[in-house]
């Protein structure tokens, strides 16, 4: 591990000031579970790290204006613990298979998003849940759909002077009579069933209207340079009756939308076929949970 300076700001302003003053070799540090591995492997070699642990503004999960605001420093373990995440089944399913229970206690949601791995576990459910991401710098705050945030493997729309400050999820309530019931599901296929790098992962979100799927989002992980939405597959289902035929067709389309690679772990062909299997299974699962 190369030498670096470590800053430990106590406020968001101090953190943003530090980021604004430094050049591109400054990096924020969340839980450290990805960063320390990257530092050791020399994938990143910053001159300065800004530890965000002491920045209270980045903590906390609050519900306001129909949205859940998830502070950047929220750990994966907290997603499993905090009842405010109850409506977001796919997110909690992903959290429950994220690395291992000890890593979940350290790793943060912003860290997983910021690493922007094509196989990042939390990313497909966040895409399926249509999460918004808030970025702050000394001069501005901007909010964008998470789908626009990922540019490629380990490449994001975040500038070096910016921090991820929060993730925002639209809260819907199954209890509310005015909104339609919604449901989501997630699955990660690995060499074993838990705690493994995913060969493929699938997250889906459904909004139901009687026997129809009123709206749907399907997100795929580990089968493209970045986590992606299978929008054409969604079109097959959107506004349609929930049926075996539609389901199969949507799953088939999803498998053609992605662009997996062949490597020593699995072939592209297999990954594609598994996308089809799991898109179908996850939609069935989400539908069953209404």
């Amino acid at each position, binding site marked *: *591990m*190369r*030498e*670096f*300076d*470590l800053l*430990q700001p106590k406020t968001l302003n101090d953190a943003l000031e530090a980021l604004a003053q430094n050049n591109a070799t400054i990096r924020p*540090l969340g*839980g*450290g*579970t990805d960063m*320390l*591995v990257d*530092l050791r492997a020399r994938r990143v070699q910053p001159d300065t*790290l800004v*530890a965000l*642990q*002491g920045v209270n503004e980045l903590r906390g999960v609050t519900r306001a204006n129909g949205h859940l605001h998830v502070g950047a420093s929220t750990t994966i*373990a907290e997603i*499993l*613990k*905090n*009842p405010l*995440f109850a409506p977001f*089944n796919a997110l*909690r*399913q992903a959290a*429950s298979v994220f*690395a*291992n*229970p*000890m*890593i979940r*206690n*350290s790793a943060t949601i912003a860290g997983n998003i910021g690493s922007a791995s094509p196989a990042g576990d939390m990313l497909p459910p966040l895409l399926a849940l249509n999460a918004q991401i808030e970025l702050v710098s000394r001069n501005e705050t901007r909010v964008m759909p998470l789908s626009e945030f990922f540019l490629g493997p380990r490449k994001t729309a975040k500038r070096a002077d910016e921090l991820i400050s929060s993730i925002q999820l639209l809260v819907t309530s199954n209890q509310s009579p005015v909104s339609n019931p919604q449901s989501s599901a*997630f*699955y*990660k*296929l*690995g*060499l*074993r*069933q*838990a*705690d*493994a*790098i995913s*060969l493929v992962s699938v997250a889906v979100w459904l909004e139901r209207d009687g026997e129809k799927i009123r709206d749907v989002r399907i997100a795929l992980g580990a089968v493209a340079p970045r986590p992606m939405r299978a929008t054409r597959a969604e079109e097959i289902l959107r506004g349609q009756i929930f049926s075996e035929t539609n389901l199969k067709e949507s799953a088939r389309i999803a498998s053609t939308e992605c662009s997996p690679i062949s*490597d*020593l*772990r*699995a*072939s592209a062909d*297999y990954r594609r*076929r*598994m996308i089809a*299997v799991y898109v179908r*299974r996850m939609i069935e*699962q989400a539908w069953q*949970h209404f």
Partner: protein
Amino acid sequence: MNLSLTINHEIQEIEIQPRETLLRALRRNGYFGVKHGCENGECGACAVLIDGVPMNSCVMLAAQAEEKNITTIEALGQVEEQGWKRTEGLDPLQNAFIETGAIQCGYCTPALILAAKALLEKNPQPNENKVREALSGVLCRCTGYVKPVEAVMQAIREPRVETGDLGIPVPLEFFQPPSSEISYDETPISSLQSPISNLHTPVSTLPQMLVAPTIPQTSIVGKPEKKVDAQKLAQGKPAFTDDIELRGMLYAKVLFSPVAHARIKRIDVAQARALPGVHAVLTHHDLPRVVYSTAGQSDPIPGPLDMFSLDDKVRFVGDRVAFVAAESEEIAERALELIAVEYEELPALIDMRDAMKADAIRIHDEAEYVNFGESDPSKNIAAEIEFELGNVAQGFAQADFVLEDEYIVPKVQQVSIEPHVVVTYWDEDDRLVIRTSTQVPFHARRILAPVLQLPPKRIRVIKPRIGGGFGGKQEVLIEDVAAHLTIATGRPVRYEYTRREEFENARSRHPMRVRMKTGVLRDGTMVANEMYALSDTGAYGCHAVTVTGNTGQKCMGLYNAPNIKFHAHIVYTNTPPAGAFRGYGVPQGFFPLEVHMEKIARHLGLDPLEFRLKNAVKAGDELPTSKAWSEGREPHPEVIETCGLAECVSEGARAIQWRSLQSPVSDSKRLETRDYPHLRRGVGVACVMQGTAIPYLDMGGASIKINDDGSFNLLVGATDLGTGSDTVLAQLAAEILGVPIDDILVYSSDTDFTPFDKGAYASSTTYISGGAVVKAAEQVAQQIKARAAQIFSDWAEKHGETDIPRTEFAQPETFPLIPDPRTLPPALRPNDIVLRDQRAWAPDGRSLSLAEIALSTLHHRDQFQIMAVASYVSPKSPPPFAAQFAQVLVDTETGQVTVEKLVMAVDSGVIVNPATASGQIEGGMTQALGYAVCEEMLYDARGQSVIRSLGDYKIFAANEMPELQTIFVQTFEPSHPFGLKAVAEIPMDGVAPAVANAVYDACGVWLNEIPLTPERVWRALKK
């Protein structure tokens, strides 16, 4: 920078570097219970509690712990009796881990206990799934998690309800089990993804024991005694190689080759040497060119000598180029970057099938190469083995049915959680001390002497506690690096592999391509059996002959065909060398053999169990392959004295409910529910055997001496690497000396203090080293009895006057009343005395405590030290036998195989300690399960490993385990005084074929290649 935090309830201010991890900072400050196992937060050995929450201290900067409250294992509890002081004693979790046998090597124990502690603080009554989930962040390679889980359940103290006969559980949510069982919190997560079925570890994790009538009554042998080292390991005491700090110690790093095959044209180290803090940079120009083998085996090494500490040629990605010693690891790493190397790249030979081609590049062209047997480096052949018993060609001609097929087994790694680690230093007598995590301290000294140009008498090898080895440390792998650097600098040097270096540079299991050809008569009688193995030893030939020889010797010996042939080529490639790994070539042979047997049985419509037993060897048979080959040395024919294989098959079949499950492949394999149309369940079996030590070669020594209080020091060269051998050896001594195991103080091992032992391999320690302990203990017992008889006789002569002031005349029920001294015989013979309950008993009921006898011999009269040294070598290698069963669930849409249950019924002779022995079986089955379904070392076309971390190479965690069941079918092996045979390696042998056969049973496809990854199974299903 300064860091203020609370460690174990004490507020502290410590000096740290910004880039220092919390793991490093804690260890530097003496908290050695926090362990290094990887650097990526994947093994969990570095767990600490931060404000009560378990976290990985290796992926956290020390600075991130500012103002936090840290708890390490050192805070939990201490042994209660500390001389005149009493402490509150051990934590209930620590006690439970000790009592249940949950501790094997103990390297991950502190982390497991802390993870459990954090769980119980939050949730005092967790169910088993929650315990498994909480422990799943800590990888254990020894136990299979059965006993650690049981320890936590026991610590909860609520009596657990026995679930009784579970039978076959209802279809589990294969890919979406109900979640409330798993999440910590109360909000249910619907459809959590986890393979956890509702595992119920039985109330007692001790195995089922079947006892042969010939087994004599014993009081300590056969009992689940607590491990003699468990107490220190539960407290996280500094017992391991790296748990010391020496003044002026330097840190070593090695520059590894980035290319698979090249000559080093030029190497410039001037800049690296000039870096402040660097004390030595060594290249092949600096070291003597001594050819050797790293294989930790007896002299002469049965294999080619083909390696140098540093060479001007590199033969795999990861081969050594230069050594650096510096004041810190960071400086040493920086120095590596400053070494300029110019390589002349050579064509790389990666695929073993290309090695013997006429135009293949020659990997070993060094003049110093020393051949062994049939090795021929000009053809890239490290070894060739061929034997034929009878005439297989004639056998095939007679056969009604001949089946031929090819099988592939992968390269896999031992993955001890403690990496290879060594500390070297010169002592005050200018002798080089090598403190190392090794299975072979005596071989290490002998092998290193010429390499370092020191006579063996100037080398002392200390083996402290070992954090697992599994064969990976039957290798003199990194000791030379630190030793050369200590010689170069005069300073202590520490060298430890990172996890990535383990995967890229350490040894592994030989991958093989195996062709089987078997001929049978219509009634299932095997008339000819032939195996050809192409085995890949990688860049160096360590263990090349012996591993693959055992593939043939052990596997082809199980079935007693009149015509047997084995032929193998062991070839060099430009990949990391393979070596010794638990099972030692035998798992590689049993996967092909036992899948092949299943195919034949299915083809002929024979019962797979009956077909196997019909052809398997039996007690009284000569082991067919014993006369054909023996570890590259002279073979001696051996008759099998004990074979419980038939009982193993019937007991195992009962446990897995074989008859009700195993049936012709059909739709009946569908689960009885419409919700899971894609799931199929099946069961499979494999019969296996191993050996027990190497006959006429393996030798172990032991010495025993008495202390003032009637306790004994037992010094053994045997190398407990977590297996429990220290405990088992202490039990054998305690049985003979009539004392509790606490009175036997075991020390292993140190080449200065303990007798020679060949080391921990070949399933030999209990049998061979145990034989030495028995002999030494018998001699010590004889000396005690002689003195006791003398005292009793003198006492009788003097009519009541005694030189023993505190003699107590105990009167146990079994003895008659104390006789009138005047009627006693004038003299007792030593053999009249019995040792029991820490006392020496005369036939008339008088007794002396061993302390009295010790004081008498050491201080009072005719003084001498009661002690003895003995050694043992066996003319036999009695095979243990086993039947291994697997129950699997196959997802036919995805190819995922979930192993639901593994049963192993094994004849290992008399079991000395059911807790440690079943721990060996459970841990071995778990490693074998990885071999069956997910472990595989992969290389790209340039020979670069794609496996770099425990994320890439998954070993099973506590929440992914199938149910494990162990059944010991005990026989009394007459070649050993206590009737025992080996346990350690045989569980590796049969899981992979049993799982593959179960997959066939479930869905009718054969898989000839392991591991059974989802894609392999899916492709087979698609055909």
